[in-house]
């Protein structure tokens, strides 16, 4: 089963990379751009057929390693069954 983890910086945590990207976009003429925040997307191939159980395991993975919950939030998305 494919599980996607989206990791984003918590609100209030400075994102210097996002700020630099925002500044570049403005310089390139995209004046409509306001705040830019950069996150991470981790795609996991999990040997598990039960979506609820997979989500529970991936939440453990996030708490244990994938996210630093001092500064990051995570969202788990079950992308679907493997084909074949």
């Amino acid at each position: 089963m494919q599980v996607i983890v989206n990791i984003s910086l918590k609100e209030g945590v400075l994102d210097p990379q996002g700020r630099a990207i925002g500044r570049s976009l403005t310089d390139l003429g995209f004046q409509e751009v306001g705040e830019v925040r950069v996150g991470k997307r981790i795609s996991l191939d999990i040997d598990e057929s039960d979506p609820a159980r997979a989500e529970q395991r991936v939440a453990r993975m996030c708490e244990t390693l994938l996210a630093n919950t001092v500064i990051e939030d995570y969202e788990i998305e079950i992308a679907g069954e493997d084909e074949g």
Partner: protein
Amino acid sequence: MSLSELRVAIIVFPGSNCDRDMMVAVEKLAGRRPALVWHKETSLDPVDLAIIPGGFSYGDYLRCGALAARSPIMEAVLDHAARGGAVMGICNGFQVLLEAGLLPGVLVENAGLRYVCRNTCIEVVGGTESPFTAGLVPGQKLIIPLAHNEGNYFATDDDLQRLEDSGQIAFRYVDSNIHGPSNPNGAARDIAGIISANGRVMGMMPHPERALSTELGSADGATMLTASLEALVS
């Protein structure tokens, strides 16, 4: 115990690159060569001080220090710390200690978005009784170089206030005649290093092992390390 009887272990991860500098520094200052312990080991011989050195453990993948903090040897380091053993983390080692939960907060990308490599002036703060500040005087200034891209200390306001109130800020960046802003990375409350509530775990961004002689810019790292080693002996 005399200085040369002090048992020091330096943990080596793939990507550590200050392990040997620290080994040379401790050997020079204490008179006994520390053990280098590979991260795959699962036990630490009884030691008086475990040092997590600087570098780029695991290529800084995922987050700086995140993978090293979960490698096999860290269980033993956590046990050592839980028994009240002394632990010092420098630069990437500080990042590892935060990721391992031995100290609160996290080190994020420098506010200036640039890798910073230069001398900084730090001031001893302290308050909590700790071997890492015991031989130093509050307000004492030290010139120590740093070199990092993620040294911007961040913690929740509650944690920052707790660190401040309980005297757990070990070192703070302060003004000096060194070129550039006194706070090189945007760290909250100018924090350069912190100590645990029991004073036995310390992490700092600057590299004392790179400041051992005035010929190379500063001997203040030797002052700081000697004070720590001597405090651990007494």
